[in-house]
């Protein structure tokens, strides 16, 4: 007879140790990256300044504290939000190819921002507000339409409704681009659609934190339970879960922060798709471990890309271009590797 108590505690110790090791490693990596990113920038030429040099020069200090630091925090929050949302959506939809912009959220934000650029004079505040409004409208419209559809199960209906809503907003963006002044407004729309954190300040940090942080904390606390939502509804039901109700709650917690982040950062693709894949590859599919790791990796990935975006050239490289470029490359690398633990 096997000693199950001993085996089970050994199992827990083994898993927790391996996971803790990875988390400590990534936390250290993230902290070092934040510190380096704070010191790195164009002042006026690209350089890695020493902390003493920054503290002793008021202008450099102002630049680091009021421009670089909020931007760094926003990039961390953006990455963590997109990846957390990616993990949750992929689990709920039981499909590893789903990403957070799925339910009309990204295209809704694009429509809102374009509308602001053309009709409201492209102030950052109105762009953010309209982008957030239309992005959340996109989510609710998708859910509303899914309830009205008379075809397939709930997940399929949501997918179809999301595709339809995204297409509607995308057509709207097309019309707005057609109406836009080609010299001023059209480049602005195009630049916004490519995503970026170039206008970041502390106001934006204070604006996103109340939406993003509580949602991420709740999702973190229920991370093991997310596994149950990947099961067939009748099985989840037999385990004491009300799948419809819990999926809607978790979906809202995952998508509303994305809508808020997109309103600030524009459309930043691929993060929510590839980071959950990489996490599952490193620690397995169990969301008790893959969810927290995704938060770290997503934050690190966006910080890395955004640091390149603001330092590599004299001008700003849109963040969305870099995340797509690097993300697609990593994705291809994962798919062409022979072993692919964590996703089917």
């Amino acid at each position, binding site marked *: 007879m*096997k000693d199950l108590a001993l085996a*089970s*505690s050994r199992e827990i110790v083994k898993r927790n140790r391996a996971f803790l090791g990875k988390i400590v490693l990534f936390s250290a990596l993230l902290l070092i990256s934040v510190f380096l990113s704070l010191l790195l920038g164009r002042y006026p030429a690209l350089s890695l300044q020493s902390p003493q040099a920054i503290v002793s020069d008021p202008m450099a200090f102002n630049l680091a504290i009021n421009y670089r630091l909020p931007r760094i925090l926003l990039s961390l929050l953006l990455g963590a939000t997109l990846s957390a949302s990616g993990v949750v959506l992929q689990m709920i939809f039981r499909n590893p190819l789903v990403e957070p912009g799925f339910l009309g959220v990204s295209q809704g934000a694009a429509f809102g921002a374009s509308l602001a650029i053309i009709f409201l004079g492209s102030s950052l505040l109105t762009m953010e507000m309209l982008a957030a409004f239309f992005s959340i409208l996109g989510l609710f419209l998708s859910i509303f339409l899914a309830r009205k559809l008379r075809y397939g199960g709930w997940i399929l209906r949501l997918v179809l409704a999301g595709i339809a809503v995204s297409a509607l907003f995308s057509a709207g963006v097309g019309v707005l681009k057609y109406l836009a002044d080609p010299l001023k407004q059209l480049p602005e729309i195009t630049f916004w659609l490519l995503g970026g954190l170039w206008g970041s300040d502390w106001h934006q940090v204070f604006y996103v934190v109340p939406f993003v942080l509580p949602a991420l904390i709740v999702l973190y606390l229920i*991370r093991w339970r997310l596994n149950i939502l990947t099961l067939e509804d009748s*099985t989840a039901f037999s*385990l*004491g*879960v009300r799948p419809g109700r819990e999926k809607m709650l978790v979906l809202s917690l995952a998508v509303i922060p994305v809508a808020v982040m997109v309103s600030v950062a524009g459309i930043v693709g691929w993060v929510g798709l590839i980071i959950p894949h990489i996490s599952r590859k490193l620690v397995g599919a169990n969301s008790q471990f893959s969810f927290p790791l995704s938060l770290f990796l997503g934050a690190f990935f966006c910080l890395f890309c955004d640091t390149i975006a603001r330092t590599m050239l004299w001008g700003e490289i849109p963040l969305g271009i870099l995340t797509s470029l690097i993300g697609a490359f990593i994705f291809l690398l994962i798919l062409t590797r022979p072993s692919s*633990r964590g996703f089917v």
Partner: protein
Amino acid sequence: MRALSLSGVSFSYIPREPVIRDVSFSLESGRILALLGPNGSGKTTLLHLILGQLSPKRGEIEIFEREIRSYSRSELSKIIGLARQEERVAFEFTALEYVLLGRAPYLGPLEAPSDDDYEKALQALEMAGVFHLQDRFLTSLSGGERQLVIIARALAQIPKILLLDEPLAHLDLKNQSLLLQVLKSLREQGVTVVFSTHDPNAASVIADQILLLQKGCLLQYGPPDEVLAPEKLQDVYEVPLRIVEGNGKRYVLLENIGER
């Protein structure tokens, strides 16, 4: 004590097209019941009614002599476990990670499995005879091994009533024999088992009671030697059948395979 009692239960997905019609029966605790009938006879719907996932349009269901609606979802999930015929798992969970999900009824929304839950999950894997598969990915298992792991997940719930939807469908003879041993040992521990099957022989081998269903109607309910009569079965399966006896059990054979 009566574990399960249905009186006049009817159910329909579409109005005026009932899939379960006026079904009444009761089952003592610690017994094995086979829901027998051809494909589409309403076996899975009946299981989902007993699970509480579907509510009857008419009639009443009692679990341990208490109306099913009086139980909370959490209470019921500690009493009834379900193992489905085919569970599609979208991500690569190991068998142990998957079986641990069976501990969900005992965990709060913010809790993760404890030492005790790991121990219960390992016990369930051992009980289902698949302890050695604990670190294997579910997607890498054969159909039979996978079915046993799914049953282990339901056993980790420590249910008083275990519902199994076509549990023998994907199993080879060795795994069938393993599963039947598991069911026997559950019966000895006082667990009530309800399983659906379209195979009269599977019902005959293990069930204490058989409920014969035809197009949602209860055709007969009783012990195997009463229910497994050629006339009734021929009527239900619409093929000529022969009953043979051996080891004190009745077995059903196809009489002959005619020309089309």
